């Protein structure tokens, strides 16, 4: 019962964080801010929802698989974001500064 409530809370929190990130991805003015919104919430959403699902399931194999997915996501997500940001810097994509619309 407590597990159930806990898993509910985690999944709702994960969904909330994810929707926040998606709105950020949609509304923010330039690439770097969008990236900030998307990549940070991405990992947190994945973590919250996967842990929430882990509390729901009954077989140990499923828990292990979910944990594996969680670890690989936590490993690859920030790396992909890092490479993406570095590449964007590399090709001189200008950030959006002081309200001047000089983002490409």
């Amino acid at each position, binding site marked *: 019962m407590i597990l159930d409530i806990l898993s*509910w809370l985690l999944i709702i929190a994960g969904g909330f964080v994810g929707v926040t990130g998606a709105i950020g*991805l949609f509304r923010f003015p330039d690439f770097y801010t*969008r990236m900030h919104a998307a990549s940070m919430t991405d990992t947190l959403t994945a973590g919250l929802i996967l842990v929430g699902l882990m509390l729901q399931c009954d077989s140990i194999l499923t828990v292990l698989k979910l944990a594996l*997915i969680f670890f690989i996501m936590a490993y690859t997500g920030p790396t992909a974001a890092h490479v993406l940001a570095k590449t964007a810097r590399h090709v001189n994509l200008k950030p959006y500064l002081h309200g001047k619309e000089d983002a490409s």
Partner: protein
Amino acid sequence: MYLAAAVAILFIMSLALARALLGPTLFDRILAVNMFGTKTVLLVAVLSLAAGDSSYLDIALVYVLINFIGVLAVLRFFEYDPDSRI
């Protein structure tokens, strides 16, 4: 509960799709596709628990790996050109 999670994820996916369609630069699109991919993984995981079939999780795992490789591949071929522009 699974339904609530699935609806939230689908909402996120549609916003990411909108960003991928609009995205002024290529990087916005890559970011949106990356986000879409991770959300697909979560959707598959939710579906798997809802259907009670843990073998669906294998597919989620494949998505995680393929998604990462895909993002890297785009960046690699994009960076390839020494005098590329946005």
